[in-house]
Every structure is written in structure tokens, then in C-alpha cells.
């Protein structure tokens, strides 16, 4: 299972607290993890990625293992520790605004 930490607003929308865990079939990539999160929590469709283009929303960041993976290819493999469930994949609201 892949561990995912959602930002507070998205946890509220998804009616969850704390981490969520999702099953990711195939290679553990950003795209597949987000697909799995959206499949389990359809209310989050469009909140992390643009619904039409699939691109990351401008003020959303993806972190894991103390690395900013936001600008990596969505089809690149995530770190092994994320794939093994040892570290979470973090969806983060960027520091911006007030």
C-alpha cells in the first residue's frame, strides 16, 4: 500500500484524517498514485491536477523523502521507499497567499 498525506483542505473534502493508503497497480509513479487517490476519493478530482490537461495545479506540490518531485515527469518512478510504503507521498499546498 502506498501512503499518501493530503493537505488539510483536501482531507476535509475527502472526509479523512491523517494519512490515507491506496493500492497502486503497476509501477508506482506520481500519475498512478494520484489516479488511485482520485479513484478512492472522487471528490478530489480536479483539485490536485487540472481536469482537462492532467497537469499539476500551479499551487500544488508533491514531496517525498525530503525531495520536491513536483516538476518530475508524472510517469517517473517514485522513490523506492514510497513504493515500499516506508515513506509517504506528500501532496502539499504551496506556500503562497494569505
Amino acid at each position, binding site marked *: 500500500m502506498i501512503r499518501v498525506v493530503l*493537505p488539510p*483542505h*483536501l482531507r476535509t*473534502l475527502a472526509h479523512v484524517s491523517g494519512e490515507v493508503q491506496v493500492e497502486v497497480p503497476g509501477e508506482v509513479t506520481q500519475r498512478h498514485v494520484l489516479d488511485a487517490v482520485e479513484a478512492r476519493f472522487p*471528490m478530489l*478530482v*480536479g*483539485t*490536485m491536477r487540472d*481536469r*482537462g490537461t492532467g497537469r499539476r*495545479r*500551479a*499551487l*500544488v506540490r508533491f514531496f517525498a523523502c525530503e525531495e520536491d518531485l513536483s516538476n518530475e515527469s508524472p510517469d517517473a518512478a517514485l522513490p523506492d521507499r514510497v513504493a515500499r510504503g516506508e515513506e509517504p507521498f506528500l501532496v502539499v*499546498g*504551496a506556500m*503562497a*497567499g494569505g
Partner: protein
Amino acid sequence: MSGVRLLVGTRKGLFVLTSDAARKDWKVDGPHFGGWEIYHANGSPVDPNRIYVSQSGGWFGQLIQRSDDGGATWQQVDHDFTYAGEVGDHLWYDGTPRPWEFKRIWHLEPSRTELDVVYAGAEDAALFKSTDGGQKWVELTGLRTHTSAPKWQPGAGGMCLHTIILDPVNPERIFVAISAAGAFRSDDGGVTWQPINRGLNSGGIPDPDAEVGHCVHRIAQHPSRPDTLFMQKHWDVMRSDDAGDNWREISGDLPTDFGFPIAVHAHEPETIYVVPITSDSLHYVMDGKLRVYRSRTGGEQWEPLTVGLPQEHCYVNVLRDAMAVDTLDECGIYFGTSAGQVYGSADSGDTWQALVSDLPPICSVEAQVLP
């Protein structure tokens, strides 16, 4: 009548204010959807317990919430506002073409007669319709693909469709207004549209009386006179008595005719309200005084309403969707400010009281009379 409910959309959440029919003591509930921008919340005329909310933010985009119990509980409904078909270009601020890009929903307008029918006005300007209570949205493409659309340009707040009026007599007639394209009317339920901007004169565009390009801020209508429309434009307060075919200026003796909201008294179709602000570069009320101006003559002659409103050191604005009236026998009128105050009058504007004072900046106010 048991009371009034106000739906107050703010930069940081939705607040719900309720009172009995006396409208003296108000209960404040909220924030709902704390931290999110609530551009608009609006209830169904068919059932006031059906409420739709536009919930958006720069981080996570646009959502729509719906309540079927007057705001006690909420359910997230569909928020897919994908433009249908080919996405054309409009003009950007610098005059270059720019593709339509969805940003948010500014206004939600539930049907007067069908509980599950609701319209949504978008930025970039487009009109969407749902016939199932928001579970699915479909764009009425005739507006965005109008032949004039490549010449539409955003106002400072974005290219937003902010006003939707569903004609109370002719079910096929819809009015909308877009900043900064102007006003449009459909007489076939939203399939085709025509600009209705004849008589508008806007100094900020190259051709002041162009067919489109006007920064219309708000349009209001009294249900008993559906062909009479009142408009607060960027500058100028305007009136039409032929469903928008022709407009004439009614700014009259207003101290300034720049402003955003305009409202019509619930029982007096010639009584209208505006909140003038200083200018296009000074978006706050004049001389530090918060004054609502009322005309009982359908325009031209205006009187300042000041009793109960701050008359010194006040530098707030009132946005276009932030003024509403109720339909109790003695008409109530309400507005919210950029500094988070909601003011209300239970006597057609003669006297005012602050209903709540320290909310986040207010985007919208709607009033519901509860059975």
C-alpha cells in the same frame, strides 16, 4: 413568515445569518468551508432549503456544494466545468489573443420554477447549466461562441460572467452580464445570444459605444416589470425599459456614478439602490462615509441613506453580488463590505444596523425569506 436567512460568501468561507421577521437580532453561523473563497451562495426560489455554493481557491480549484436542508449539511456535487467543443480565443489585457481558460464560478442562479435546474456563470466567461441539482454541468455554448467573443476582454477582476437573470415571465429569456464584454440576452433558453449594449458609453474602450467591450458590473430587475433593467456599469448607472435593447443613463445627482452593486426594492419597482464609490482608481466610498443611495423615481433623483452607517473614517467597498433584498412586507435590504461588515435595514433603507462586523472580506450576500 418566520424569518430571513442571509447567505454571506466571503474570502474565507460561508456564513449564514438568520433572524425572525423583526430582523433585529441575528444569529451568525459559520464559517462553512473555512479558508475557501465563497464567491457566491444562492438558494432556490422553489425550496429555500436547497442552497448552492461556489467554493474555490487558488490552490485546489473550483468545487460546488449543495445543501438540501438549509445549510445544516452539505454534499459536494460535480465541479467539472469543461468548455464544450473548440475553445476559442478572447483578447487579453494587452490586446493579444488568449484561449479561454476556466478559473472559477462567480455566480449561481437557481431556476425560479424547477428545483434541480441551476445556472452557473464562469470566469473565463461562459454559462453552464445543470438540470439535476448540480450533479452534471453542461455549457450553453452559444454565448461563448458568439461572433463577438473574440473581442471580449477581461476587466481588472477577470473575464467573469457575474450576473444571471432568469426572466420571471418568459421562461425562454435569460439575461447575463460579463466584465468586460457587456450585457447579453437570450430569447431561446440560452441557445443563441445577442449583445444588448446600445446606449452604453464607456470611456475606457477605444470605441465608447461599441457593440461589446463594456464593463457592466451588475444588472437588476424587478419581477413585476421584466422589461425594465437597471445597470451599474463601471461608470454610469443605466436603465432600459425594453429588455436591454436600449439603455439610458440615470446617474442624475449621484455624487459619483462608479460602483458595483445595484438592487431593486421588493415591492416598489421604481425604487433602486446603489453604493457609489469614489472612482475606478479609488475603490472605496467617498469622503470616508458609507452611504447607500436610493432613488424612488427609477433613477435620476437620489437620496443618501446614512442612519446607522459609519459616516467618518470608512473606506470600504461593496462588491457586485454583495447586496440583496428580502420580500417581507416591509422590504429588508442587506449588503456586505470589503472589510467584513454586513449591514441590514428592515425599513427599505431608512435605518441600518450592523448585523455582524468582523467577517472576512465579503464577496456576496443573498437573502432568503423562510416560510
